């Protein structure tokens, strides 16, 4: 970890020593880290100002491996007097001690990029900023004074920024190496677009190739509330640190003032249990704090509110995945799962996960894992990350993925996305590459991805059933007629009928639903019930169309109860089909069709009536079929 006294040593020396933990260990990485720091800052700034972010990154290669990197956003801009300190200070940013979910958690990032540029090319960073309230844009060229550890403004001017109401632009000149593939700027942009479906981001690569992901929602994530930490899971060190920053006061007041969601009763209890009623906090000894922590450990688990956390939320995870991975034409988007807020070490966190299955994804390789912390993609140190470990410790075979030896990254045509949002992400290092081992977070990730796994399994089971049905139809519609035909031809004996064998092979009632659109909101449903068994059968079909006007019905044995249609079909002889045609005007989505009152045989084609039909709208929790399935324009990646 960085220590404050390290500011006393030469800043250049400090940077040289810590290049690896800051993400500048090689020239390829340096380019990526610089872009990433700038983009993370832009997104944070736009969201806190309620602006839908549009970001443009342009990378131009000059001679001698020198790159000109420009990142321009439509953010709120910054005060002209704060430009220098925002981009030229290697001290901690102000965000460091506050408990709030943000991308750029440690404030060192962008200034390190400025420093790296200056060291490798000797050229200053150029920043253009315009706020909505300013009439002109301010242009600042700055470097970092290595002796004083201070920003030094080289040039300052004003300009008219054509067609720009507000925004910020930074240009850096640095030595670098531009590459595509894993751990590249392209990958970072792509992965950022997945979990930030509200942004438009454009990358112009050195060969002028343009990569663009356009926003698929106008919903800006709500702003996280700044909150105080929770006492649950807090350690001695955390308390000592907060005491250091706090004026002297009683223990009870200290807890009431510095922690979230703590009652006077609990604060008093903490005080009396440790027997420190008459000791003020600055006089507390180590063993006092130890007793306090032990007492806190005995308190029941707190459930944090989610006001400090901004999950991406299930429907937007799906939209983001579709927007970016859609080109691979996956067969199935597993409905994403967002967990409940939990606490680690006093910090609230929330885990979300999504998954994509099939299509052009490679089936014989380990699944791709997209890791995110506070909406920022983690591209490095996959093996050393808690997210990877949690996924690896789940038994995926039960959910339909391959996994040798029952642990490790599973294989199969899938991409798994895991997002950890927290007021504080426990990174393994300053470079923010991987999440450290925290049991509370690991358990929650496991739980969330297991829920995801169960949903995948449900889907795969459905696929298996569908395949089985297809196979049966191939037998009865194609193979059995051919077998009979060939048998008759070879033997030269009289024609025979095979119809009664069909029922024996199928042995099901088959409900076939055909849907046609008639005009704008009109739909025509044809429901055919075929008895593929040897005995007579009956069935009741339930159709829920939401609020509808029924234009026509072909069968009189139909009861209509507030848009819920009940079709009673009796005496279906073996091999026979009964049909209901129905034209409706419906504003809502597709009709839901279920069956009941079938005895002694299996039904294929539709699902059984859920138990809560009479109570409420039928909701099948683990079986949801996509409310957000509307067709969106797929973006080419």
């Amino acid at each position, binding site marked *: 970890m960085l220590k404050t006294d390290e500011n006393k040593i030469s800043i250049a020396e400090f940077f040289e020593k810590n290049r690896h933990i800051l993400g500048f260990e090689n020239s390829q990485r340096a380019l990526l880290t610089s872009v990433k720091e700038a983009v993370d800052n832009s997104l944070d700034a736009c969201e806190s100002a309620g602006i839908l972010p549009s970001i443009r990154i342009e990378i131009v290669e000059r001679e001698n491996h020198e790159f000109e990197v420009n990142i321009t956003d439509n953010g709120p801009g910054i005060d002209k007097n704060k430009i220098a300190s925002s981009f030229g200070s290697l001290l901690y940013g102000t965000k460091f001690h506050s408990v709030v979910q943000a991308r750029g958690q440690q404030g060192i990032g962008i200034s390190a990029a400025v420093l790296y540029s200056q060291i490798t090319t000797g050229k200053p960073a150029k920043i253009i900023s315009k706020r909505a309230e300013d009439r002109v844009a301010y242009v600042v060229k700055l470097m970092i004074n290595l002796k004083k550890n201070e920003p030094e403004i080289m040039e300052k001017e004003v300009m008219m920024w054509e067609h720009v109401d507000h925004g910020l632009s930074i240009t850096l000149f640095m030595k670098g190496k531009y590459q595509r593939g894993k751990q590249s700027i392209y990958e970072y942009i792509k992965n950022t677009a997945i979990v930030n479906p509200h942004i438009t981001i454009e990358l112009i690569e050195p060969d002028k190739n343009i990569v663009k992901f356009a926003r698929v929602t106008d919903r800006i994530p709500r702003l996280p509330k700044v909150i105080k930490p929770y006492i649950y899971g807090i350690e001695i060190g955390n308390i000592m640190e907060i005491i250091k920053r706090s004026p002297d006061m009683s223990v009870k007041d200290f807890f009431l003032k510095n922690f979230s969601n703590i009652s006077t009763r609990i604060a008093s209890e903490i005080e009396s249990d440790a027997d420190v009623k008459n000791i003020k906090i600055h006089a507390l000894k180590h063993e006092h704090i130890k007793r306090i922590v032990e007492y806190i450990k005995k308190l029941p688990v707190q459930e944090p509110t989610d006001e400090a956390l901004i999950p991406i939320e299930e429907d937007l995870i799906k939209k983001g995945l579709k927007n970016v991975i859609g080109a691979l034409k996956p067969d199935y988007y597993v409905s994403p799962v967002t967990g409940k807020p939990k606490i680690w070490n006093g910090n609230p966190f929330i885990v979300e996960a999504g998954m994509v299955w099939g299509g052009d994804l490679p089936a014989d390789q380990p699944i791709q894992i997209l890791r995110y912390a506070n909406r920022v993609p983690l591209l490095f140190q996959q093996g050393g990350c808690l997210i990877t470990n949690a996924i690896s410790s789940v038994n995926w075979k039960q959910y339909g993925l391959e996994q040798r030896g029952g642990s490790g990254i599973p294989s199969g045509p899938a991409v798994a996305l895991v997002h950890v949002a927290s007021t504080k992400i426990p990174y393994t290092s300053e470079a923010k590459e991987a999440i450290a081992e925290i049991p509370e977070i690991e358990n929650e990730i496991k739980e969330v991805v297991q829920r995801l796994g169960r949903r995948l399994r449900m889907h795969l089971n459905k696929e298996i059933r569908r395949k089985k049905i297809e196979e049966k139809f191939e037998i009865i519609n194609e193979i059995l007629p*051919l*077998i009979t035909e060939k048998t008759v031809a070879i033997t030269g004996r009289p024609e025979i009928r095979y119809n009664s*064998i069909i029922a024996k092979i199928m042995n099901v009632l088959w409900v076939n639903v055909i849907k046609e659109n008639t005009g704008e909101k009109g739909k025509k449903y044809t429901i055919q019930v075929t008895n593929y068994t040897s005995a007579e059968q009956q069935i009741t079909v339930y159709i829920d169309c939401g609020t509808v006007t029924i234009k026509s019905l072909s069968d009189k044995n139909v009861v209509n109860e507030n848009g819920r249609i009940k079709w009673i079909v009796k005496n279906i002889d073996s091999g026979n089909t009964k049909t209901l045609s129905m034209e409706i005007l419906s504003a809502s989505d597709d009709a839901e069709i279920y069956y009941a009152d079938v005895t002694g045989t299996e039904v294929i084609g539709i699902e059984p009536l859920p138990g809560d039909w009479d109570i409420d709208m039928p909701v099948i929790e683990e079986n949801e079929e996509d409310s957000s399935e509307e067709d969106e324009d797929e973006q080419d990646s």
Partner: protein
Amino acid sequence: MSRTLKEVVDEIYEQIKREEIPYLSIKARNRKNLQINNNTGVWNIGNSCIKRSAMKLNGARSILRTLYTIEFILNMSREEKTSTLRELYYISEQWKNGKFSMQDESNKLVEDLEILTDKMRENLRIRPEENGASVIGDLTITEVNRKGNKKKINCKDDVGDGGYALPYNVESEKINFISTNAKFILAIECGGMFDRLTENRFDEKYGAVLVHLKGQPARSTRRFIKRCSEEMNLPVVVFTDGDPWSFRIFASVAYGAIKTSHISDYLATPSAEFMGVTASDIINYNLPTDKLKGEDVNALKAELTDPRFNTEFWKNEIELMLNINKKAEQQSLAKYGLEFVSDHYLPEKLSQMSVL
């Protein structure tokens, strides 16, 4: 109970007529369904059957393929034609849902028809494109050539270094054994070793008929060895690599292969003896080795449950190989020079077996 092809189809006709889901019942070819004939010492197919039913897609396809194949064979017999296994596979392109997706499927189906009808595939007008082995040694035979003439061939004097190449048909209408001065047949797994022994003139020095097995031997090779051994009264000695797969090569020569267990009587030479390379040879001759791979170990373990290997000799050899965890190739004997195999190893081993 042998049936004609048409009777097989008649049965399916009757099933449909009786409103039964069509099925075929065929004797199973697997390790568990092997039965030894104590009179001959050959392992034959047992009586347990598998049922292919049109209830399942694979079964339905298999029945349809059988029908198409039977129709194809009946048409060929009307037109007096024959077809190779590979041609059969390609012919199925026109068979709609009965099309084969791999040649292995059509090969197996032909074997099924052999079982159902108790006939050899040649009698069903299907022949292999697999070519038989090469033979070198003082053995005189006659072969009926393409012109229909019986041609006399001495497999030592009338052939080049490649030896006499066996045709796919080695039955008496094609090949007859006339005379030999050889004392035994040496069946050799690899081409390299066959060439080595030819170059070292092992056949002349020790009176051997060398037969190159070419890995897992073709039917014609096994049939040739059986006929030659019986008709010329020559003992058969099998010389292979020292690994689990080679043990199976020996088993298919001597006891009968699982895949052709329905015609073992026809192909197996139960008097054939395994000479090496044994696991004991690996130790005694201190041969260069490779470590057993996972699949090797699995194959050895499977052999421990294979009834054909249920003898004192094989149990010891298999367990020894598992213990030393090593395998060796025939040609590893070259460690001691190119003549070692013909001047030392073979004479030693063959005297131990009292063949020499």
